[in-house]
């Protein structure tokens, strides 16, 4: 069986599945249950300087698919609302009882050197494996000059990271906010500050829905709502892109990545690892289904690795990075055509109407005298966009078939139709 052990920022873990700093890692009781369920580590819910914050009721809103499944959660909860000492004693207890599991202490403070350093030292003294800087919380805490208020200013990201590095001698993880224009700026700043790893993404600033009876955004607190932090399956594509950006950029190479954002199952985990993540953090999926989901994450990831012949995470980590390129590096001479398997087709017409109304009018719809409906791709009109294959409800009914060609790999910068095509004579 594949070895799921991993190392991130110098911290070793029995598996890459950690719980992110959030309600599931709020206290001893939850964390012990998580370790018992098989999670490799936890990032304890963010600690601040006493007095503890006070939370509101209610705290969560959700984004659902048509079947009622939750694809995203929006929360307006703040950091730990329990006394610092209580949390630290519980961390010590967990460390003692579960020596093979990782505990990272998450922290935040205002932009003040002494505050960051004193808190970091206190947390480090509880025996944590590392410290994560929460520079991402996009609601509530940022209004007090913390969380994303710091994470959105690269200079402050660098500064706080450096302060914590100077204060403690354990690994430092800088957690990044996605609510910025370019993820590379804070990632580079974290690296400059000396971070061993970056954790990303924190939640996305959001209003998840509006209650049309009360005319207020959800979740509603006595008739009013506020923007919150969006997480869960829906944010995975955003997180994948940001992780890939950091993996690809020369400036951020060498930074370990603790990937966060909509990881619900082993496949999501494998995708983040393929884009360079060293380890993973999960929250929403556990909040929706409980800690038991880690069973399939472990089992599914090792089955996948066994099937592919990967003996360790390092064997495939970052394997998709080289194939993640800028648009300008794509081959303009590559072409595919949709092919509908008439034996599998159940005649629903979804491919036809999608193509007819919104794409290239490349799927012909005919009804035979006997009433049989048939859908056929017109190759000359098909641009290979994939839409039909995505809307088709039948697995593998529509295949995208590459068109055989002897044309060379040709990028847009080299393309004859590109008006800005590099002039081979003048550019010499």
């Amino acid at each position, binding site marked *: 069986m594949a070895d799921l052990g991993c190392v991130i920022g110098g911290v070793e873990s029995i598996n890459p599945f950690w719980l992110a700093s959030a309600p599931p890692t709020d206290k001893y009781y939850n964390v012990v249950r998580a370790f018992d369920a098989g999670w490799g580590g936890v990032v304890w819910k963010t600690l601040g300087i006493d007095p503890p914050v006070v939370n509101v009721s209610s705290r969560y809103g959700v984004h659902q698919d*048509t*079947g*009622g499944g939750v694809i995203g959660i929006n929360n307006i909860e703040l950091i730990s609302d329990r006394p610092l000492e209580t949390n630290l004693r519980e961390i010590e207890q967990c460390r003692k009882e579960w020596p093979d599991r990782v505990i990272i202490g998450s922290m935040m403070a205002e932009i003040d050197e002494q505050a960051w350093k004193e808190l970091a030292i206190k947390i480090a003294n509880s025996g944590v494996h590392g410290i994560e800087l929460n520079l991402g919380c996009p609601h509530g805490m940022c209004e007090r000059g913390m969380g994303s208020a710091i994470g959105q200013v690269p200079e402050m990201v660098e500064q706080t990271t450096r302060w914590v590095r100077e204060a403690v001698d354990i690994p430092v993880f800088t957690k990044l906010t996605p609510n910025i224009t370019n993820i590379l700026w804070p990632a580079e700043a974290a690296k400059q500050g000396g971070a061993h790893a970056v954790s990303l993404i924190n939640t996305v600033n959001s209003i998840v829905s509006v209650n049309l009876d009360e005319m207020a955004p959800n979740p509603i607190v006595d008739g009013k709502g506020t923007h919150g932090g969006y997480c869960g399956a829906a944010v995975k594509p955003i997180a994948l892109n940001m992780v890939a950006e950091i993996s690809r950029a020369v400036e951020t190479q060498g930074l370990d990545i603790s990937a966060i954002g909509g990881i619900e199952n082993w496949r999501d985990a494998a995708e983040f690892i393929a884009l360079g993540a060293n380890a993973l953090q999960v929250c929403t999926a556990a909040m929706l289904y409980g800690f038991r989901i880690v069973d399939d994450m472990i089992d599914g990831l090792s089955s996948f690795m066994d099937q592919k012949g990967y003996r360790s995470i390092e064997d495939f980590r970052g394997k998709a990075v080289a194939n993640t390129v800028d648009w300008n590096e794509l081959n303009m001479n590559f072409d595919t055509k949709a092919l509908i398997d008439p034996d599998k*087709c*159940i*005649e*629903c*017409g*979804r491919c*036809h*109407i999608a193509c007819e109304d919104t794409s290239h009018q490349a799927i012909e*719809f005919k009804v035979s005298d006997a*009433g049989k*409906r048939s859908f056929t791709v017109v190759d000359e009109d098909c641009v290979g966009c994939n839409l039909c294959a995505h809307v088709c*409800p*039948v697995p593998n009914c529509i295949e995208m078939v590459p068109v055989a060609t002897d044309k060379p790999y040709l990028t847009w910068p080299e393309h004859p139709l590109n008006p800005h095509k590099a002039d081979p004579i003048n550019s010499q």
Partner: protein
Amino acid sequence: MPSEAGKKSCSDSKTNGDIAANFDDLHKPLNALQAVGAADHCIYCYDAPCIQACPTSIDIPTFIHQIRTDNVMGAARTILSENIMGGTCARACPTEVLCEQACVYNHGDEAPVEIGLLQRYAVDHLMEAGGAHPFERGKDTGKHIAVVGAGPAGLSCAHRSAMLGHKVTVYEAKAKPGGLNEYGLAAYKMVDDFAQKEVSFLLDIGGIDINYNHTLGENLDLQQLLEQFDAVFLSVGLGGTNKLGLENEGMSGVNDAIEFIETLRQTDNKADMKIGNDIIVIGGGNTAVDAAVQAKKLGARNVTLVYRRGEDAMSATPYEVELARKSGVMVELWAKPATINGNGHVASMAFERTKMLNGKLASTGETIEITADTVMKAIGQQLDIAPLKGFEIAGGKISVTADFSTNVSGVFAGGDCIKTGEDLTVQAVEDGKQAAHAINEYLTSGETHNG
């Protein structure tokens, strides 16, 4: 030689415990959770086959999508805009041979979308919510239409005519409206007095009056209607029943199945219904199944449904035949009524065994005898043509053109009384709707549509 059915008849004790519970809804309505699940199963097909399979052309993918987006009132309006009796049709339609048979999931050997139950969910939601009627009466045209028969075709025509701005007066032979919805469907398909609730909902549009206990040819004269009204729509259904043509057919205990079904529907406490021990139901349609299953539900010990041909030839849907078997009804195929036996009251019937010979039904020479204290005939109904003098009749039914006009100027007809009548509520509703548009065309263009 007595059949198995006959041999087993030996006790007069009834076999079916809680009679009231036996007449609960055949298909339990969906709750909100189930409706979301069922709606999510729909693929939202383009130019969907289910729409074409629905005689009233309800835009099924759209109304299911509306349920999915929590626009349940909108879903109900989508249904009712094509079929004002969508509530009854959701309960009584043989969806397994209509919309659900056309569902594309059948190509993939998957269970079709539960269209009937979803339709009921939406329409019940609107009707239970009450509030304003979802459709407006059209601007008054000054025209007045007479509708004869307050069944599905007549009421559908009346409602659509009201939408088109015409005033409507309905004449109904019975004391209540609804036609077969009220009198002819099995009780377990129409619980909680739904037929009456639906009629009352339908009449909320306004501009429709109903006169009860008016029977054509008795206290209602067609000629007078023609003089009094701008147009007449005949939706009289099929009043008469077919006969076996056997001696002793008038014997005590030998009845029409539709009478039994009607009496049962009009009996509030089903336990008050008297039922025999050994019942024979003759026929192969849904009426035969409705009668047989309900006899069983009332506690009859032996119920035998006898049909002269094979199961494939039965007009009852396979689902209905299966329902009969599951309810404990014995289905005896290839047996043709031969004699009705008894001394004053029926005691048994003899049937000739049949087979197909050169494409025709023939007797094998063998006979079987089945014990019976009750015989219910469900061998079809017929139009009472006596009050329809001057009308062209074909195949025992009123002849109409494609626009539902008869050979008598200004008189239109639809539902079971016309030649295309299919004994389906949903077809009758469609007839009434289309006839209303044809009548509107006739009234507004001032032209007659017949020679």
